[in-house]
């Protein structure tokens, strides 16, 4: 599951009473977006494949058959074979997990560091300004270039690559969080909390975090799509996952030299990357719409 389970940083009640968020209203609205429901279903399927993948491959994804290289799709090899005769369908299934883990890792780093950073930046006036200037500096780099720079230091490899992508996400999450928090902090209910004497830590837990979940969840979905692409791009360049392991992006990269002789090799990984990115964005839109605030009931 790429993102369906990632959200909900909302704190639960100290006395564990039923959730404070209006989940039913959200669910009702979300279910009325047909596209978002279909996309969620697709992502769910991808998630299942990622988990049980190695158990359902028709062939050993690493078994080479030099007698049958670059085979077109057939009954035995549904998607054909690659340049060393491995079953592309099996490799695609196994690569799903790599791709998704990579996405989760980078988004977790981005949100895990960026959200608290943004929160601090919003609440501490002086340090906040400084932090934001630093993140501005990071954001000035093109993301892929920055990631390549990080890999230059850490060395190639999937984990390093995705850490690098995660670092790219940090300023974006920090910035969004800071803006959202500052927006919420202007609401009268925060002032009311101060008059009550609610300590800052509790104001954050009770009022601020639940009310910034919406934009952050949307950002997580958008970032997942981007991470998928970034992983593909870096692996395509050979900076990500290292052979014999594979990811969708690596499969696509390996298919490139044969685009004239065995063009079908790149189709399946390309379609899956595109479809997954599209699905995360559709889901992000659906979540964004469903979380929309009630409009005022004026006269």
């Amino acid at each position, binding site marked *: 599951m790429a993102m369906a389970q990632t959200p909900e940083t*909302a704190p639960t009640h100290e*006395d564990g*009473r039923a959730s*404070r*968020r*209006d989940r039913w209203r959200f669910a009702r609205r979300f279910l009325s977006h047909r596209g978002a429901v279909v996309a969620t279903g697709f992502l769910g399927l991808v998630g299942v494949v990622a988990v049980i993948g190695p158990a359902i491959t028709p062939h050993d994804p690493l078994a080479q058959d030099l007698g049958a290289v670059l085979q077109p799709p057939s009954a035995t090899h549904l998607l054909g074979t690659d340049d060393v005769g491995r079953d592309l369908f099996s490799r695609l299934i196994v690569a799903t997990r790599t791709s998704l883990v990579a996405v989760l890792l980078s988004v977790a780093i981005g949100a895990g560091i960026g959200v608290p950073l943004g929160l601090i930046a919003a609440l501490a006036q002086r340090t906040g300004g400084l932090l934001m200037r630093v993140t501005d500096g990071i954001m000035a780099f093109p993301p892929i270039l920055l990631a390549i720079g990080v890999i230059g230091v850490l060395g190639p490899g999937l984990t390093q690559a995705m850490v690098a992508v995660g670092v790219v996400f940090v300023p974006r999450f920090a910035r969004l969080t800071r803006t959202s928090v500052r927006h919420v902090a202007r*609401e*009268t*209910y925060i*002032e*009311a*909390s*101060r*008059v*009550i*004497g*609610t*300590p800052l830590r*509790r104001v954050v837990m*009770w*009022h601020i975090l*639940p*009310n910034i979940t919406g934009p952050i969840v949307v950002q997580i979905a958008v970032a997942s799509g981007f991470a998928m692409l970034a992983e593909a791009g870096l692996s395509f360049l050979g900076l990500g996952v290292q052979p014999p392991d594979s990811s969708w992006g690596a499969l696509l990269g390996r298919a490139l030299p044969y685009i004239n002789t065995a063009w079908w090799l790149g189709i399946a990984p390309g379609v899956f990357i595109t479809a997954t990115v599209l699905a995360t964005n559709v889901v992000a839109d659906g979540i964004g719409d469903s979380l929309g*605030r*009630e409009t*005022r*009931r004026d006269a």
Partner: protein
Amino acid sequence: MSRDILTLDDVHVAFSPQGLFRRRTAPVRAVRGVSLGVGEAESVGLVGESGCGKSTLGRVAVRLLSPTSGTVSFQGQAIQALPERRMRPLRPGLQMVFQDPYSSLDPSMTVGDSVAEPLRVHERLSGAERRARGREMLHLVGLEERHLDRYPHEFSGGQRQRVALARALILNPQVVVCDEATSAVDVSTQNQILALLRELRHDRGMGFLFISHNLAAVRHVAQRVAVMYLGKVVETGPTARVFAAPAHPYTHMLLTSAPGASRRGAGGATPVGEPPSPVNPPAGCPFQTRCPMVMERCRVEMPAPTPVDGGGEVACHLQTDGPHLAGRPLPETLRAGV
């Protein structure tokens, strides 16, 4: 004034527009030397037009803002510079209700949780006890138990304002600052809230600082009134006296401006001008630019508060120099001008 629970003494508030590129801008002098007190079981009305500094003063009173100078004391303790940690034990006694019923409740919290928030901060109670107290408060403000588990968006503005009131009252405070608390609700809800405030004052001895531009509401709920104009209090006094015999030309203008059949009957009495900007208030009397009875002296010298027949004080040179207004028929000049 010694019996006052909440006292503001010579409070000044100036806002300097902050920012990298405009630190040099002149400060907004929102409040300029206001003294005010609220006693036990007393309701004090603070009236004035938007921008006169009354809301700023309300925020200073509950220490949401620190005054630039002057003192604010609650139960005899100076609170204007108290760190939040030492302020917290005093908070239950000093609560506030805000104007906007739409943004004063957290949309992600049930009404029950919003009302019980002060209990979670200040009292150690079980969830069930909190719920019982919340239910009790909702009953008090005219809502029902079934409303506890609903979210604010399911409520009308009037109902939300009742919830906000319940939250402010749940700790049984000694003083509640109501900042335009009934301005955004229908008359029916307003009157219900006003009646409740009166009842709380009588039965529990609560004090209220009732800030409003709505003269009718203030008249219903306040025993004493202070009239603010451009950051200064221009007149104070018992509500009955101020409404029946205003001593300051501004108070008089406010009262005669209130729409209604009587204003229509009086005919041709349109007030002049609008309040000047608080960035650069005029020297001397703040009301000089609109006052129909302005004198040379008003342009240079700020009039000092002077006692008025019938109670209270007025800051107007007419009181010492001219035909003062209170308790007398209005002079011709004022009638024609206002």
